[in-house]
């Protein structure tokens, strides 16, 4: 499998796509955020498995997102997601508030190729009350009243995430971050950025193979060293809390967000 440039991957995401992104600690392809914004994408429906952080917040700040489906938006220790909060206040974004296991259930249904999965809990919440796409059904195996929530399959058009390594065949090492496999199984197209390409097959060694997402599910791979930064990557590097904190402060206003984007652009140009 050939490796691609980040811009090539960004071109595989069309306007209006249902775009799935992983939780911060699983491996976020932050290096893809700017190429996506630079494309001027519009009307994305972003699905976070199961919560979102800086990447979807930046996409919202840049005006790429029409709908966000998530259990939470947070910058962790750095506080709330500033562009998301502003968009909610202004009513410029549609939020499909969820709860973590319900998002997992939607992906599981897609993984199985079935129309829905059922899940306990949620009955009586305003989360359920505001999700007309979730249905309360009677447990067909019970003679007594037993309401249970049915969550429709979530089938993203595109998934994007970041991992430590891929091999020349396009197999990707996801370790124990199994939510990355859930994303790929459910998505029509999965784009992966990696720290590095290894020359031996990741499937050659049984110990490594247990943590491999096979190339079968992977559309394209691009190399992006420190591609999750300033968010951390498991087993590789920690989060740059100072930089995330700076984003949290500066992105509180639209002007601050733009200035932060431009400033980081200049820093990138200085490096390249």
């Amino acid at each position, binding site marked *: 499998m050939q490796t691609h440039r980040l811009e090539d991957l960004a071109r595989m995401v069309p306007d209006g796509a249902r775009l799935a992104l992983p*939780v911060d*600690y*699983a491996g976020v392809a932050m290096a893809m955020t700017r190429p996506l914004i630079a494309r001027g994408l519009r009307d994305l429906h972003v699905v976070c*498995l*199961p*919560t979102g952080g800086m990447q979807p917040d930046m996409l919202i700040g840049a005006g790429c997102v029409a709908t966000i489906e*998530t*259990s*939470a*938006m*947070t910058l*962790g*220790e750095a506080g*709330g*997601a500033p562009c*998301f*909060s502003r968009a*909610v*206040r202004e*009513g410029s974004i*549609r*939020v499909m*508030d*969820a*709860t*973590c*296991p*319900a998002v*997992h259930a939607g992906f*599981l249904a897609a993984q199985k190729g079935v129309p829905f999965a059922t*899940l*306990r*809990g*949620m*009955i*009586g*919440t*305003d*989360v*359920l009350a*505001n999700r007309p796409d979730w249905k309360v059904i009677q447990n067909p195996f019970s003679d*007594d*009243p*037993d*309401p*249970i929530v049915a969550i429709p399959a979530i089938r993203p058009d595109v998934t994007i995430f970041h991992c430590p390594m891929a091999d020349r065949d396009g197999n990707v090492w996801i370790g*124990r*971050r*199994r*939510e*990355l*496999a*859930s994303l790929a199984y459910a998505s029509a197209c999965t784009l992966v950025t990696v720290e590095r390409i290894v020359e031996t097959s990741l499937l050659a060694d049984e110990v490594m193979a247990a943590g491999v997402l096979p190339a079968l599910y992977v559309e394209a791979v691009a190399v992006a060293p420190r591609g999750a930064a300033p968010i951390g990557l498991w087993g590789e590097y920690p989060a740059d809390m100072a930089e995330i904190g700076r984003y949290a402060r500066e992105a509180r206003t639209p002007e601050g967000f733009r200035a932060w984007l431009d400033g980081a652009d200049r820093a990138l140009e200085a490096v390249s």
Partner: protein
Amino acid sequence: MSALLPRERLIVSIARLLEGVRHVAVGASSPIPAAGAMLLRALAERDGKPRVRISILGSREHNFFTNGSAELFDCAGQGRIDAFFLGGGQIDGEANINLVGTGDYPQTPVRWPGSFGSSYLYFVVPRVILFREEHTPRVFVEKVDFVSAPGTSPEEVYRPGGPHALLTSLGVFSFDRAARRFRLESVHPGHTLPEIKAATGFAFDHAPDVPETADPDAATLALLRGRVLTELGETYPEFARQIGADITAADLAACQPA
């Protein structure tokens, strides 16, 4: 040894509320519940009681999940998690919690991160401990603006789980699921019942004389300040360092002549 710090009292209170559990899970960014769970585990080991398992999300040393972020919820759904902690931007007198925002949804003027796993875990984890340090009328409201998770459910709804207690910087409450009311069980030293009533936006039950939250014995405090703070430092280095510094400052102050 110097006197108990307010945060140490919260940690000790959590260990007491967890007594008897086999497996307690702690969410991300929750150093005090994590420390309480670690203290419970250390006490159980010391006293030869059944082993306590703890799963601290965000930790490498104290989290054994290998099936991604779904595993916590699967584990809870199987009944393998006895206790968990939830907070809330708002908590009301019927133990409903709101993690979404204030005002009219969806265009809430104040928007919080979101419900996370609360809309599910509150139903399936038998002993949910509500923990919120800030004890003010803006947090403890008559009725939440948005129900992320309800305190109680109708009889036909599958619900082995729910609220067990509420711990704040002022005191400890139990929750009566049948009466759908909190009961103030103890007041932290230095605080009073009238102060708690003024800081709480809902009515609650209490004995005519509410006892003070008891101090731990010296051996428990030593365990907390030794092993538990060391374990906590792996996941929450800054928090553990701060408590360590506060203990040192209190020790020094105790040595000064009046």
